[in-house]
């Protein structure tokens, strides 16, 4: 069974937990083993490098050094988050090509008793591994519930097909790996012209109108193509398009409702797994109408099933309350 060293990244621990859950649910069916990088740290996203350069590369260097220690039969380091993937790949490539940077990063790593020789691990994105190593034939052989009739807009976001000129594995402006994967699952794939356009990245925290406009273009574009769902492979893209879709609609006085799912979630559904095991139901924009098209039934969201109509606002508030920090054993104590 091929084994890969796996760098999950901060987003997959929480905001993109459904991405991690669905990957964990399908990886054995794909016949791969994943070994997490031990005690990995944040990759710095696009923020650390805006403040310190050498420290930003050293931050990523620590992850590379830790991964290199786990090289044992495999030297493939896999990341599923686009920003993590780009940062790892870029740092490794820059260290290979710039002896000064290599020496500086290693001087910093030495302060923590670590060392990294650039090129010791090969950094790959999950999608690249699935389509180019595991292969679409293996994927097809696992499909028990084809996504027949589901119109999917494949959305790559900006970072995964760019910018490394050496290890490029798909076209930078019109990649097809995700399109082909979705076709292998039986979905109806639309030729989405905005597939590599930006989701707004960190602009949701810096300048909301800029972010809303970028989100609007993508959602509205996919709606015009009559997509049932946008499928993505990046935690930031999913977060921006899903969690901010309601506010974007309010801002532009529009009413677009387009669910955003991870490609691993659709793979799991096609493989016959239960939606709950794939983290489905934790998205902001309800995916049930889209999934009903492929015969997937989901329980209604919490608030609908918790309180039968008619109900008063107050009663519901008392019942659910605001989410508060919880300690183990709280639930029993409050029962």
């Amino acid at each position, binding site marked *: 069974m091929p084994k890969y060293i796996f760098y999950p990244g901060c987003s997959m621990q929480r905001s993109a937990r459904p991405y991690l859950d669905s990957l964990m649910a399908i990886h054995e069916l794909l016949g791969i083993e994943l070994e997490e990088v031990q005690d990995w740290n944040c990759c710095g996203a696009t923020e650390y490098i805006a403040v310190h350069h050498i420290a930003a590369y050293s931050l990523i260097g620590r992850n590379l050094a830790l991964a290199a220690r786990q090289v044992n039969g495999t030297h493939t380091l896999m990341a599923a988050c686009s920003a993590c993937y780009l940062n790892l790949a870029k740092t490794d490539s820059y260290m290979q090509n710039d002896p000064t940077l290599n020496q500086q990063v290693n001087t910093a790593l030495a302060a923590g008793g670590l060392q990294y020789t650039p090129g010791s691990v090969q950094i790959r994105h999950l999608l690249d591994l699935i389509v180019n190593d595991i292969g679409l034939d293996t994927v097809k052989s696992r499909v028990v519930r084809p996504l027949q009739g589901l119109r999917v807009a494949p959305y790559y976001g900006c970072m995964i097909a760019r910018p490394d000129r050496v290890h490029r594995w798909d076209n930078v402006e019109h990649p097809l790996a995700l399109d082909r994967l979705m076709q292998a699952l039986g979905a109806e794939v639309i030729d989405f012209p905005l597939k590599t356009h930006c989701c707004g990245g960190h602009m949701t925290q810096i300048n909301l109108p800029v972010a809303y406009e*970028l989100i609007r273009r993508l959602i509205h574009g996919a709606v015009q193509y009559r997509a049932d769902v946008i499928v993505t492979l990046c935690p930031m893209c999913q977060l921006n398009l899903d969690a901010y879709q309601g506010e974007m609609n309010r801002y532009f006085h529009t009413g677009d409702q387009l669910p955003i799912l991870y490609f691993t979630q659709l793979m799991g559904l096609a493989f016959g797994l239960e939606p709950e095991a794939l983290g489905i139901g934790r998205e902001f924009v309800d995916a049930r109408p889209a999934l009903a098209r492929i015969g997937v039934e989901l329980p209604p969201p919490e608030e609908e099933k918790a309180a039968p109509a008619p109900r008063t606002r107050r009663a519901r508030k008392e019942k659910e309350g605001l989410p508060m920090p919880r300690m183990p054993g709280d639930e029993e104590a409050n029962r």
Partner: protein
Amino acid sequence: MAAALTSHGKSAPASFLEEVLAATPGDSRLGMCIQCGTCGGSCPAAADMDHTPRQIFAMIRADMRDAVLGSNTPWHCVSCYYCTVRCPQEVHIPDVMYTLKSMAIREKLYDDSTAPDFSQTFIGYIENYGRSFEFGLATRHHLKHRLTQIPSMVPVGLGMLTKGRMDLTPHKIEKVEQLQAILARAIELEVA
């Protein structure tokens, strides 16, 4: 001031262009820009920038140091790399933008502090815990800079919490001291 940034082991710069080149790890190829404007035409955020990337590069060459570092352009760069893959001269444009951001922070030249503060709050969590902390970051950032936008962000924040997509406490890596030692040494190298 102009000689302050020799962190990348290159000789002391004579012009702002050389200073930017020296402060950018690797070969950014900034000197190769032919002013074609493909970058600005490809940029998803260009419409909201004070200057397009092409203009910024011309201003760097013209030694317009304060105007460049006071521009919102680097802060509006979303790191999508569209410009980079389309640039006929293969200029590493986002890397140049990162350099300009760090210079503007160091010299406090960008007058709207929202974006630099966001970066600094973000890295503060990394330095203390080794991981990013979305709840702390979003809360602190909104309380400090975006009080008026808090009501419109309540649905997003509450949704994240109730859907189990945001933690209320940060996660600390085991060897956070090791990470801190590495980062401290790296920052020493930068200012050396």
